[in-house]
């Protein structure tokens, strides 16, 4: 049995095409990334960027949702949630940073091109960028952050990083020291959730990476996610057409985030599966307490390994539970509904916290090999901690949970 199949998931709900995609991605990333990562480490130019191109363009993840007549695969029903989960856990197993970037791309596609909410005009405008085969669309989001009151009004306790105003049939965007969710140095398209001057409803506006007035700071160093070369941005009088505003309402924004959180959850599960494979090799071969005592057979280390497997297994089930909620709006409601959004937020936080614990424990079991780059484990630990921080403060997320479950109104 394929060792990844040891961790159950609702295979019966996946279509054959999902399983085929997952299988081909598993082979591809094994050959192109996993087998080469010791040699190429986390080299962006040598390893990560070429594989991002391959995944988004050649495999076609960036064409998945778009209508066929616009060059896409038109796999844009809610059941695509399972496809997203199955694909991103395979990519995440190879490199969580690459999967994190792909999660942005897929979430934006879902927001624009989902069958039930398809925005034909917006699709016609943006699909070619994703489908013309010219190169990868590196999508980044500019979301509200915690503790930046001085920049703009707040949305659910977080402050907008960008202010937009309507002017001469378009939008003008302003913002300084903006920290995007990824790839500030490379992104070809930014999706910004903006405060709108003089209006209460925010706007989600797409900003091309080469828009005049958009300037990028130097790439900054961070804990992990080498595939995301991040940099702070300034938007100084950036003008974009009116059509670049994709939506104004909370519902659509939460819908985008629910899909984004599904992508991140699957990415995280991928990182956990990688950790499992590394620990498995360690546990099979390591000898402790003298000759003949195999690591996995020791009652203490064996129990901890079991606990890690439990964490991975539960996380995978949660990821597919979330996919199931998004895949079945008739039972659970719209992806942007308060209930689905809150569940998505809870699941992404839960899975990331579980991953943090499981990776800490895996490293503990492997002692020095846990933090030696040679063993390739520590990169998942760094990557997923970075993802967790970018997803946002757990304290604020808990307020969202309280809003839904207890009806809190002023948090």
């Amino acid at each position: 049995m394929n060792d990844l199949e040891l961790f159950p998931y609702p295979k019966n709900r996946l279509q054959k095409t999902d399983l085929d995609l997952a299988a081909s991605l598993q082979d591809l990333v094994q050959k192109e990334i996993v087998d080469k990562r010791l040699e190429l480490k986390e080299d962006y130019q040598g390893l990560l960027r070429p594989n991002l191109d391959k995944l988004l363009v050649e495999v076609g993840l960036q064409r998945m949702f778009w209508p066929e007549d616009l060059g896409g695969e038109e796999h844009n029903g809610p059941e695509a949630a399972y496809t997203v989960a199955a694909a991103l856990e395979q990519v995440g197993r190879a490199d969580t940073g690459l999967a994190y970037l792909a999660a942005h791309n897929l979430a934006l596609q879902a927001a624009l091109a989902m069958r039930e909410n398809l925005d034909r005009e917006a699709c016609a405008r943006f699909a070619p960028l994703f489908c013309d085969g010219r190169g990868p669309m590196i999508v980044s989001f500019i979301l509200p952050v915690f503790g930046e009151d001085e920049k703009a009004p707040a949305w659910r306790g977080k402050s907008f990083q960008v202010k937009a105003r309507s002017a001469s049939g378009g939008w003008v965007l302003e913002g300084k020291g903006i920290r995007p969710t990824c790839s500030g140095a490379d992104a070809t398209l930014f999706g910004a959730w903006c405060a709108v001057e003089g209006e209460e409803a925010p706007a989600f506006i797409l900003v091309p990476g080469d828009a005049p007035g958009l300037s990028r700071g130097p790439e900054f160093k961070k804990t992990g996610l080498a595939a995301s070369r991040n940099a702070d941005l300034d938007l100084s009088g950036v003008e974009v057409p009116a059509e670049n505003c994709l939506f104004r309402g909370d519902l659509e924004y939460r819908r985008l985030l629910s899909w984004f959180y599904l992508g991140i959850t699957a990415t995280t599960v991928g990182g956990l599966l990688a950790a499992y494979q590394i620990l498995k090799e360690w546990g099979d071969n390591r000898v402790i307490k003298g000759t003949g005592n195999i690591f996995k057979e020791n009652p203490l280390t064996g129990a901890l390994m079991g606990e890690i497997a439990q964490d991975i297994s539960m996380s995978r089930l949660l990821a597919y539970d979330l996919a199931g909620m998004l895949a079945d709006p008739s039972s659970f409601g719209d992806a942007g509904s308060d209930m689905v959004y809150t569940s998505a937020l809870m699941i992404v936080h839960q899975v990331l916290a579980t991953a943090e614990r499981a990776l800490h424990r895996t490293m503990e079991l492997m002692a020095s090999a846990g933090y030696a780059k040679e063993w390739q484990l520590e990169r998942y630990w760094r990557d997923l901690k970075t993802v967790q921080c970018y997803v946002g403060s757990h304290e604020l997320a808990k307020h969202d949970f309280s809003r839904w479950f207890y009806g809190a109104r002023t948090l």
Partner: protein
Amino acid sequence: MRGIDVFSRPLEYLTPLGEQVGEIIREWVEKEVIPYRRGFDEDYLEHRLIHPPFKKLLGEYGIQRILFPEDLGGWGLGHSEYLCVAAFRMFEEIARADSGMAVAFGVVFWPLVLICCEPHVNRRLCEEFAPMFMTNEPVFSCLAMTEPQGGSDIENVEVLKGSTIRTVAVRDGDEWVINGHKLWPTNTGGVADLMGVVCTTNPGSRNPEDIAIIFVPADAPGVTQGPAYEKAGMAADKNGDIWFENVRVPLWYRACGPGDDAKYYGEIVSMGNMGSIAFAVGVMLNIYEKLQEYVNRKTYRGMPLKENDAVAGVLADFATTIEAVRIIGYQCARMCDRQDLYGPRWSPEVVARARAHRYFAADRALEAIGKVMNLMECFGPDRDWDVEKHWRDIKMVQLWLGGKQLSQMEVARWFFECETL
């Protein structure tokens, strides 16, 4: 804004020397380390940024001399009753800037404990090696324990009694001939000038008398150091392979002698654990400073972030962790110093207590720092805020010295009188 000195220390334990050196080190880290530390990760092989501050601290300030007797040019701390408390203060000050530097600093003295500290001073070896340290150039020691095949088996002396050690010292006339391969010692990767090497004189033996800790100058023929490993953090602490191929040293380079090398090895473990707690404290003190800046600068609903009740809960947990871990750490240091009250620091009891203190401290620190990073959202993993560096580093503090599971076994063995673990 309150600074790091608000956290409790058991004042009755502190010594004038420790405090004076602590102040000197604080000034040194402010000027020589903190301004440069963000470049340390990329400097892990060359140490172009890391070496100059060490030259000042160890060589020019002369702190590398502290363990040796006064008449040999040292400061005589080896026969004091406040060595560990003073060391704790020094370690936490250095770790506040960089815990990798703190461990590299601490390991300079680690093998020397075996020959410089009462009641097992090896006067002849002190005389032999003191001149090496009486210089303005930094001198580094290492303690070579871990081997490729067994990981923490070497540290597990009480159970395995050295039976898995494969680095072999064979007596040939009035010399030892050493062959073997060690991994991971701090201050290797070409750094070490003097090595304490854990060997067996009789492979497979469970007789403690066959465990030998032998000093080997790094330039002895047959010693080869590999390049530094690339790790998740702690760039200032170079770790690499060492190969010993027919390395010859005099018989009297053995640290304490048959039976005593194994016995006093426990002292090394206790002091290593004590130092690890100091590293955790130093790291958290610096994060406290960074966090103060963050939660005062960032605003939330018109108020500094710290004024939000939910945020304050996280801040309180972090401050509480520093308080508790620091008190435990100083207590551990005091226990290692006052052997008249607590028993020999090589005894299984003290080893177990120090292990317990260390793994509790490291676990709590790691958990608390993880929460701080999360609170800081996208600035938590940003190197410019320094918190993530400390998070990466402290993970290594948690894992070394045999890792957490070995610590748990030693603690259970002592407190519950387990016999077969």
